[in-house]
């Protein structure tokens, strides 16, 4: 199981980046006791057989991570959902992209904590590539939306240590406002 929800989000979003997507959208919406997460991309997508194998922790796409024999992102997420009464749905087709939806039941004591979402999102924003990454985050009625291209415009670049620190500050301030700290 992922130690935190942020780790699960990072794994699934990274899958989307690695699927040669030009556009990736992360939506995280908290409503009552449910935290709904959706990761959508316009990447390669998967056929039925690949999707089945993606749930096998001892399978990873050939050439994706040289030397690595496991692919734990989706299997861990499925395990978490099975164990905590959550919901996991996937919609994918070759050439069309993939949508992964998962919903945490926050009343379940075994649901992992949210973790450091500011650190996770800033790291994902800095992931190399020319793709667009859109984050839409809501807690009940409040929330924020931000695009990778907007952050790049504001910071001039995303990969430097200075940009990472400023991005983390940006996300942390927005997260704090959301949870009312």
């Amino acid at each position, binding site marked *: 199981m992922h130690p935190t929800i942020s780790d699960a989000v990072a794994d699934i979003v990274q899958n989307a980046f690695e699927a040669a997507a030009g556009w990736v959208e992360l939506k995280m919406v908290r409503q009552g006791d449910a935290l709904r997460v959706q990761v959508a991309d316009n990447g390669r997508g998967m056929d039925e057989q690949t999707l089945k194998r993606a749930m096998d922790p001892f399978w990873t796409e050939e050439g994706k991570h040289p030397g690595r024999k496991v692919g734990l992102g989706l299997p861990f997420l499925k395990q978490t959902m099975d164990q905590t009464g959550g919901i996991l749905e996937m919609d994918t087709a070759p050439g069309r992209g993939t949508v992964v939806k998962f919903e945490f039941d926050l009343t379940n004591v075994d649901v992992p904590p949210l973790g450091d979402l500011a650190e996770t999102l800033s790291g994902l924003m800095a992931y190399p590539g020319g793709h667009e990454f859109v984050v839409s985050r809501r807690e009940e009625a409040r929330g*924020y939306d*931000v695009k990778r291209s*907007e*952050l790049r*415009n*504001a*910071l*001039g670049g995303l990969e430097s240590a*200075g*940009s990472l620190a*400023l*991005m983390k*500050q*940006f996300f*942390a*301030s*927005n997260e*704090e*406002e959301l949870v009312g700290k």
Partner: protein
Amino acid sequence: MAKLTLSDLKKLREEKIAELNPRNMENKDAQVIVGMGTCGIAAGAKATFDAFVQELDAQGLQNVAVRQTGCMGLCSSEPTVKVVVSGMPEIIYGRVDSETARKIVNQHIIRKLLVNDHIYDRPAADIVH
């Protein structure tokens, strides 16, 4: 922490770039090099470094770079600072606290007069090499 917007973020970046400007060597004709080895830091070189940055900023001196280096071999006289101003000899100052740092800016860099009571000899060559 107040909620940051993208324009706040842009402003923060510009502020950080301005803060780092003294370390940039481009278009600078004088240098202040602060010894920040373990001995220097233990003796308060961080406060010395900050004092130089603040005083140069207060005096509006944009043409002076403030940089850091390691131990200059004068551990007994830390914090040590090397000041390089064109047309003047390169000077190593020792026991430079914040007040001395401000004096160096006003006397050495602005008025081109040495701060005599803090000048130290370079360490002997057999110590440095």
